[in-house]
């Protein structure tokens, strides 16, 4: 069955979880990876969940990052201005 939809957790898909569990993390079978990707395309639960996650990631990426602390920046600028002596160990 594709995309079993739970009432309490509509983002969970037991079929996807089972497929991913079968994949060897370091040396996965490309055919199994292809099955995972095909599942993501056809499963309505996964499709919706992936779409929601993608929207969240897009929004997350749009947030302007906070600046480093002033003391950190000043100390680092001081170090960057100091030209490295070629004899100095890296």
């Amino acid at each position, binding site marked *: 069955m594709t995309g079993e939809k739970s009432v309490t957790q509509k983002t969970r898909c037991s079929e996807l979880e089972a497929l*991913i569990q079968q994949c060897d993390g370091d040396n996965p079978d490309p055919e199994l990876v292809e099955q995972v990707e095909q599942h*993501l395309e056809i499963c309505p639960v996964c499709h919706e969940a992936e779409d929601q996650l993608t*929207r969240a990631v897009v929004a997350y990426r*749009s947030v302007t*990052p906070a*600046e*480093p602390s002033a003391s950190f920046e000043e100390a680092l600028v001081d170090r960057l201005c100091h030209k490295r002596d070629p004899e100095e160990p890296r």
Partner: protein
Amino acid sequence: MEKPWDIDLQVYDDESELLHGLRQRERMACTCLLKYYAPRLLRLAGQLMGDADEAEDVLQEAFIRACDRIDSFRGESGLGTWLHRIVINTALMRLRARKSVTTDDIEGVIADGPESNWQSVSSGARDPGQQVLGAELFDRMSAAIERLPESLRIAFVLRDIEGMSTHDAAATLGISESALKVRLHRARLALRKDLAGYVDAAPPKGTGSQ
């Protein structure tokens, strides 16, 4: 109060002038480089390392390394792309030195959902852009990314946050594209579980400020 590093970032007309200043180790050039690139690179370092203090160490090491090698920068990619690469490589070197990146710690996350005692790297000062996303979702996203096992977090940050291609992200990590995809799918699955009930609050695509 005016800060000594409050500067006009337009003092250099283009990247080549900035590069010339950096090669001369001009203070203004070094300051401009930091002001322009450090915020984004610090966030990248934090996402990769999962630790705010280590993120600052990575950023410092990466900028020092970049300035030491600025004479060899040929401009084949943009300065920003080059700096991103140096930060990624510096972070990966530190992570590899800390411990080898394995998949040993992944299975529990998939099966049980992550447990967290992380302090969010990104939970500090907020800017107006964060209001677009909503503070709660931003903090939950940050924390959820940090909770991912290291190998999954790095794959997710490189591919989905940094927008690297599968080929480039796999090459950066020295793994096959299939292995990268598995890590990415595991990361996304873990995030789906971790963020269940919250991602609905994310605004539609294309509403970001970038």
